[in-house]
C-alpha cells in the first residue's frame, strides 16, 4: 500500500492507521461471522457516509467466504493426514530366516503440520490381518460419522 502511486500524497502514518483500522474491522467481522446489517450499523456509528458503507459491504460480501476459510485454518491441531500410499510385498527369505513366504504391506501416511505445513511421513508395515483390522476400524469411524450427520 505504501508503494501505491494513487496514495502517495497521503501521510504514510495516516495510511498505516487506516490500513490497520480496516484490517481490524474486517477480521473482527469475519471472526464473529457478522452479517451485512451488523457491519452497516457499526460503520454508521463510526460516522461513515452511506456510499462508503455500501462499497465496503459489497467488497466484504465478495470476499467473505475466502476470509472465513482463512480464519478457520488458523490454529493448532494434531498432524493432519492428507493421503496414503501402500506397497504390497511378498517376503521370501532373510539372512536370519529362509522360506518365509508371507505377504506384507508397507503403508505410508502423508501428513501435514498445521504450523509448518510439511512433516515427514509416517511409515509402518503390517500383515494382511493387521491391515484388515486397520481398515475395519476406519470404516467404523466413517459409519459413525454418517450416523452423526443424520441426527
Amino acid at each position: 500500500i505504501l508503494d501505491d502511486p494513487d496514495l502517495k500524497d497521503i501521510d504514510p502514518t495516516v495510511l498505516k492507521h487506516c490500513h490497520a483500522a480496516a484490517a481490524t474491522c474486517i477480521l473482527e467481522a469475519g471472526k464473529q461471522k457478522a452479517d451485512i446489517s451488523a457491519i452497516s450499523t457499526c460503520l454508521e456509528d463510526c460516522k461513515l457516509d452511506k456510499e462508503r458503507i455500501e462499497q465496503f459491504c459489497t467488497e466484504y460480501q465478495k470476499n467473505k467466504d475466502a476470509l472465513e476459510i482463512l480464519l478457520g485454518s488458523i490454529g493448532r491441531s494434531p498432524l493432519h493426514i492428507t493421503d496414503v500410499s501402500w506397497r504390497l510385498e511378498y517376503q521370501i527369505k532373510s539372512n536370519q530366516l529362509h522360506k518365509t513366504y508371507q505377504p506384507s504391506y508397507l503403508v505410508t501416511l502423508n501428513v501435514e503440520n498445521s504450523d509448518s505445513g510439511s512433516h515427514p511421513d509416517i511409515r509402518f508395515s503390517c500383515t494382511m490381518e493387521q491391515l484388515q483390522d486397520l481398515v475395519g476400524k476406519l470404516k467404523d469411524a466413517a459409519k459413525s460419522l454418517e450416523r452423526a450427520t443424520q441426527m
Partner: protein
Amino acid sequence: KLNVAVEAVQRGLEGLTYLLTESSKLMISEADFQDSIHVLGFSDELNKLLLQLYLDNRKEIRSILSELAPKLPSYHSLEWRLDVQLASRSLRQQIKPAVTIKLHLHQNEDQTTQVLQTDPSTLLHLIQQLEQALGEMKTNHCRRIVRNMK
C-alpha cells in the same frame, strides 16, 4: 551334577543350539534332518529325540528368528474419535467435523503412539485406497506368484 566338564556342557549346548537354529531357519524336512544328524554317529534313540526336539520347537524358533530381520515400525492398533470443532480463537460459529486417530506402532520392543487427525473426505479416501490394497492379494497376478514360489 552331570559329572561332565564345564566346557563339554557348553560345547554341547552350542552345538545343539546351532543344530536347531540352522534347521529351523532353513525349514528342512524330517528326512533331511535325519540324514544330516545320521553323519554324527549317534544312537538311533538319540536321533529320534533330536528329531522330536526339532519338530516341537521349530515354530517357536522361527518366530524368534523373524524378529531379527530388518524391520520398519509395525502396526499394532488404532483408536479413533469423532470431533466437531465449534469455534476457535480466530473464528466463531464453526461446524468442522474431524476424526482424531491414535495410531499405536511397535518397533523392536518400543511402542510409539501418534495422534493424527483427518477430515471426513480424506477418511473415505483412505478407506478406499486401503481396501484396494487388501484386494490385491486376491488378484490372479498375486495368486500365481504365491503358487509358484512355494
